[in-house]
């Protein structure tokens, strides 16, 4: 038999409970934590430093909640462009490869941090002296600062110390030495060197760009591709064609399948002992020291030709101009410049460092051996070139055009001089819109 009883919640009790809940909700809303409740959302990358932004740094930074959406490299640019071009405020902060950085700054999608502070002088100043000077150039546009660096990289030469020693070779410092070493080290089992012809960015920046930079004198506002007046200069003295010839010289000493190699394949073949030398960006070498040849690798600045100068790249973080929380975003960036945030990135495993005291610390270099290249800048007298290559809003398109022509030159579909002449003509077309 079912015995019906009165509901245990009487009307009076219900009213009391509702009142209590309302009071609790009001108290919660009034609490300092919620009043301050700023959430800064980052359009993020999927790298180590990017992970630290929403993990270790988010835990340490108390003035706002830091959230983010990690994107793989391939889709990061698309996402950034769609969000910013449509004026979306979903993200308060935007991380960007320095290759694309001019686009948000020139199009007014990123807010100038100088302007934000000018509007409110109570905001703290950025402590930029803590950061590597070469990493700070990218976020400057038309005399104003637009953000901060998050990672600094440079093309490095990674080589097998044991193989060079066995062949009686010293570490190559010039392209002639590099070619000779590649030829001498090349065997059916171990390739003399690796090119990354299957990856647009890898081939452009790691293979061709690194060679190009040593071919001619780069003026302070000339990035090796364009000068400050948007003139195409990558082959003004025939240095672009010469860079292609340099690539063709070492192509016979590459492993099988090199036409399809991108960053991962380059790291992988070095890790497995299939090649003796590779030039690539310092931040894309993954797992090389986790393989059977651990401890046998040396890292230094990439070879040069006539001049000791080398490209420096990396990633940056900017404030979205459409964000309603620009001052809070600025405060977060100002906090980063104090240094602790960058230390957290390093503690998380990042090796493309920006904090100068970390880069200068021998203990840190011992843990992140790719940093040796930056140390070698000083001993070799290398000047870092840190201006975005293809410094146009359509940098991606310009890079693609040059890639297609460089590849045609390297693969022998065109003579290097013809490939460069075609590249010049096509880049001018792209720049003209």
């Amino acid at each position, binding site marked *: 038999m079912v015995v019906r009883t009165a509901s245990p919640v009487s009307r009076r009790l219900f009213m009391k409970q509702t009142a209590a809940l309302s009071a609790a909700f009001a108290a919660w809303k009034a609490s300092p934590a919620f009043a301050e409740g700023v959430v800064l959302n980052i359009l993020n990358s999927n790298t180590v430093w990017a992970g630290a932004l929403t993990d270790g740094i988010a835990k340490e930074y108390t003035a706002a909640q830091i959230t983010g959406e990690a994107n793989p490299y391939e889709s990061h640019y698309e996402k950034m462009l769609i969000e910013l071009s449509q004026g979306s405020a979903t993200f308060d902060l935007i991380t960007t490869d320095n290759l694309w950085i001019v686009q948000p700054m020139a199009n007014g999608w990123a807010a100038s941090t100088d302007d934000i502070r000018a509007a409110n002088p109570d905001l703290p100043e950025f402590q930029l002296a803590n950061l590597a000077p070469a990493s700070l150039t990218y976020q400057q546009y038309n005399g104003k600062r637009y953000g901060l660096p998050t990672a600094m990289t440079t093309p490095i030469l990674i080589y097998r110390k044991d193989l060079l020693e066995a062949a009686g070779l010293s570490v190559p410092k010039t392209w002639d030495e590099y070619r000779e070493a590649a030829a001498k080290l090349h065997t059916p089992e171990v390739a003399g060197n690796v090119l990354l012809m299957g990856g647009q960015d890898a081939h452009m920046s790691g293979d061709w760009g690194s060679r190009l930079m040593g071919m001619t004198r780069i003026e302070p506002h000339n990035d090796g591709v364009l000068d400050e007046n948007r003139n195409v200069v990558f082959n003004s003295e025939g240095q672009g064609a010469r860079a292609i010839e340099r690539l063709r010289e070492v192509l016979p000493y590459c492993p099988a399948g090199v*036409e399809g190699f991108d960053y991962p394949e380059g790291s992988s073949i070095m890790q497995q002992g299939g090649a003796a030398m590779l030039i690539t960006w310092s931040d894309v070498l993954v797992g090389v020291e986790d393989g059977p040849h651990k401890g046998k690798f040396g890292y230094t600045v990439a070879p040069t030709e006539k001049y000791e100068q080398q490209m420096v790249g990396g990633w940056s973080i900017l404030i979205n101009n459409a964000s309603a929380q620009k001052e809070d975003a600025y405060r977060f960036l100002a906090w980063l410049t104090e240094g602790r945030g960058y230390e957290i990135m390093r503690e998380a495993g990042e090796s493309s460092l920006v904090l100068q005291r970390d880069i200068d610390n021998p203990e840190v270099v011992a843990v992140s051996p790719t940093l040796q290249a930056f140390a070698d800048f000083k001993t070799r007298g290398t000047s870092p070139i840190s201006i975005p290559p293809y410094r146009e809003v359509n940098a991606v398109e310009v890079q693609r055009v040059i890639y297609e022509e460089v590849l045609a030159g390297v693969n022998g579909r065109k003579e290097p001089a013809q490939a460069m002449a075609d590249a010049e003509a096509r880049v001018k077309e792209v720049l003209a819109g």
Partner: protein
Amino acid sequence: MAGASVARAAQGATRAQRAGERWAPWILLAPTLVIMNVVGVYPLLHSLWVSFTGYKPSDPNAHQGWVGLKNYAEAMTDGQFWHAVLLTGAFTFASVALSLVLAVLMAILFNRPLPGFVLMRSVILIPMLITPIAVGLIWRIMMMPELGVLNYLLGFVGLGPFQWGSSRTTALVSVILVDVWQWTPFMFIIIFAGLKSLPRSPFESAQIDGASAWQTFWQVTVPMLRPVIIIAVLLRMIDALRTYDTIYIITRGGPDFATDVISIYLQRVNFRFFDLGYGSALSWITMILILIVVLIFVNLTGFLRTVNEKEAR
């Protein structure tokens, strides 16, 4: 009086019924029509409009407005685009032809009541059930020249090593093989179903007339399967013409543009360069080209005639 009102009521009911009959199909179709227009027709027409503009969100300072036929004229002289068109044609032809031959052979083989064939018929359908991204990843790893299992296995029979997707000369063949591997089961299942539905009597007559297996295949099986084969080829052809994901994962259009098919090129123009005006024009030209290919195929094969004849019967 009462009779008149009943008649009027009946007349009213008939009128309402007629109106209901007239409008009911539209009311029932309305949700579908609205959705189709919102998600299908409107974007299509919008992209047609965009194709006559210089819309390029990556460069807001560039002229974004009406440019007339400029994008279409530019496409006519775009060597990369026509290279992609030819490559897509070669890819589609090779992939569909190979799939068709294999699918017909498999359908005939599996049409025999042999032990274990029921299970095997199910197993060979697995490739088409796998998402193309996963297919691309699996094959990319298997085709690695140094570390991949394909070269390792071929080494046992003295073949290889091949460069597969890493070489200009073998990349297109490699992606065609992957496409054939994934989509032959699709053609197989259609042709197999067609084969199963064929009447027995023509085969029995052929047997009585003393036709050989080869004669029976060409003079009985193929003519009767013709409408099914045409449908299978048509569907497969349309699918192959727009292949994107597998190729993107395996070669990204490389090496050196060896697999730079239309869909890869369109993705680059539209979503890397964000040159949406030009990209839309290219997309429309591509659509028109596909339409022409399909119409030629339909005409050559007499597909519509076959359908009309069936409907008439």
